[in-house]
């Protein structure tokens, strides 16, 4: 039989019971839709992480405080107070460390910020002037924090573009205006250029203040939350990591590397960890989506088996009129493939719409890979064959007289 006639006949049969056909298709729609949406979300967050980390600079090392071990009790990682301004100064002046160009001590924490009637809760980062070079920041207006600001403990602030917008509205230049951070008045001296990114690590949603001001006036802390180090050369990253590592171990009087109270991560370490996390997340979600697809497939098989039973007499008649096994098989397979394939198309469309909505809400990149769409097409057709095969076989193997007698 010709393909066009097979398809026409299959559509006619599927149209008889529209409700049932629709519900069977819904399983595939949900399955394919969630696969497309979740895989795209995973890919997009992976890309976001990668681009964010790239934008920070590729010969960057970050020293962060590790868990402090005193008298055998380990404190929580990250919350430790083991990195100090003296550590940063020592790295700067050390003669054994030859591969580090710039040292940028940082203290950051979240605080409430107000400007007029607007307010926001954002990341306040206490920095030294060298931060701008180390983190590759550029300004759209005003100037960055200077050495004078640092030594005078000035109440000046440089805003990230998102923060500037939150506090002053779109298109307003806030330079020269004042804001209140934790109740203290700061003068805005600059706005940084957008770097992209989203969520907690959004580099556009930040306020930079002099490190001294942050430590003494805002947070009242003596230690650092991180030290960013710029290596002289990308090739020297490993050497730099080792030099700084052993230097700090010596300073902190720790002999066993396993007891280190700090961590040094390079850009590639962070990138790897981040994409590993994103990858695990994506594959877990895809697994869940795949299960829903499997359930959808079983739904298809169920419907097709029901259809075979209902149409036993028709199958008997077709066999009496000369239909061969493969004719009957192709008839039923065409039906199940049309079911799953059209379910797949709707699912792909809904998945992309869902992902579009997600990307708008989370302001992440909207990129649908052609590969995932093609795969979804293939998988939906494949499910039609896989779950349609048994019912079709069952139909083809019916004995004509038994089928004709069936009431």
């Amino acid at each position, binding site marked *: 039989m010709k393909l066009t006639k097979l398809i026409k006949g299959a559509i006619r049969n599927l149209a*008889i019971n529209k409700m049932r056909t629709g519900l069977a298709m819904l399983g595939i729609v949900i399955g394919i839709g969630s696969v497309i949406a979740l895989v795209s979300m995973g890919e997009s967050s992976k890309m976001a992480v990668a681009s964010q980390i790239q934008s920070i600079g590729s010969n960057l090392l970050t020293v962060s405080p590790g868990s402090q071990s005193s008298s055998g009790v380990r404190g929580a990682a990250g919350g430790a107070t083991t990195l100090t301004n003296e550590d940063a100064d020592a790295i700067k002046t050390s003669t054994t460390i030859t591969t580090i160009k710039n040292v940028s001590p940082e203290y950051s924490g979240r605080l409430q910020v107000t400007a007029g009637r607007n307010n926001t809760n954002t990341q306040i980062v206490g920095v030294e002037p060298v931060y701008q070079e180390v983190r590759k920041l550029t300004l759209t207006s005003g100037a960055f924090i200077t050495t004078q600001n640092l030594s005078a403990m000035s109440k000046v602030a440089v805003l990230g573009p998102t923060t500037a917008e939150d506090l002053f509205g779109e298109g307003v230049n806030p330079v020269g205006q004042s804001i209140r951070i934790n109740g203290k008045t700061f003068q805005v001296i600059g706005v940084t250029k957008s770097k992209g990114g989203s969520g907690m690590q959004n580099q556009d949603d930040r306020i930079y203040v002099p490190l001294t001001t942050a430590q003494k006036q805002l947070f009242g802390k003596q230690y650092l939350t991180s030290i960013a180090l710029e290596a002289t050369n990308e090739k020297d990253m490993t050497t730099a990591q080792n030099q700084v590592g052993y230097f700090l171990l010596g300073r902190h009087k720790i002999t066993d590397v396993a007891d280190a109270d700090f961590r040094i991560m390079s850009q590639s370490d962070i990138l790897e960890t981040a994409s590993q996390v994103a990858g695990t997340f994506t594959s877990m979600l895809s697994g869940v989506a795949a299960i829903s697809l499997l359930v959808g497939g079983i739904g298809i098989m169920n419907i097709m088996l029901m259809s075979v039973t209902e149409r036993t007499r028709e199958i008997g008649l*077709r*066999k*009496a009129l*000369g239909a*061969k096994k493969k004719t009957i098989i192709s008839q039923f397979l065409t039906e199940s493939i049309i079911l799953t394939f059209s379910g797949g198309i709707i699912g792909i469309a809904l998945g992309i719409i869902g992902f579009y909505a997600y990307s708008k809400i989370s302001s992440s990149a909207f990129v649908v890979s052609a590969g995932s769409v093609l795969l979804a097409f293939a998988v939906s057709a494949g499910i039609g064959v896989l779950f349609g095969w048994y019912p079709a076989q069952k139909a083809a193997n019916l004995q004509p007289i038994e089928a*004709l007698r069936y009431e």
Partner: protein
Amino acid sequence: MENSIIDVSHLTKIYKTDDLETVVLSDISLKIKKGEFVAIMGPSGSGKSTLMHILGALDLPTSGKYILDGQEVGRLSDDALADIRNKKIGFVFQAYNLLPRTSALENVIVPMEYAGVDDKIQMDKAKKLLGLVGLTDRLNNPPNKLSGGQQQRVAIARALVMDPAIILADEPTGNIASTQAEEVMAIFQKLNEDGHTIVMITHEPDIALHAKRIIHIKDGKIEKDGNDHKQKLLHKI
């Protein structure tokens, strides 16, 4: 007997269920020549339907030989049997067995579809045969828009469409009102006059009388066979 369309010898059919053996047909031998119009009669349970199924290549005998149009239909594969049903046999069922929601024209086309006949020829032939059974103005009606008699006429057109060696009709008037039944029987007689070989199962004597030869089956055996028997039936009425 070169012009025998059907040549059955020592045919038996035994159904086995667990320990129970039911002999439905025992040692049936029978020849039907080209151009005959045969009625097979018998009470229910006599085995006439089983015989019909075997003659129609829908079922296989337990033992014995069945030659249809020069081809032995003994132990063929399912697909080979399908081919024989498609090309050599035209079925007319009691319940019409038309495809629902499918026009008369498309119903008639189905066997040609399975045989891979060219689209253009399919249309022409189906229209011609529906004209022959008097349904030219009902080509696009689905079965539920046709009377019982009209549906059976569509089924006859469908049975003829592959130019079969034999037409097998199983109680063709069983579900039809008597006036329409006469119309259907008139078509069978006309077809027989045109040279078609027809084997018809019926339990109604007045329907059987349209045939030239009547075979009586009882308890799986041929009880009576021939024209004399028909004469007696005629006298009875």
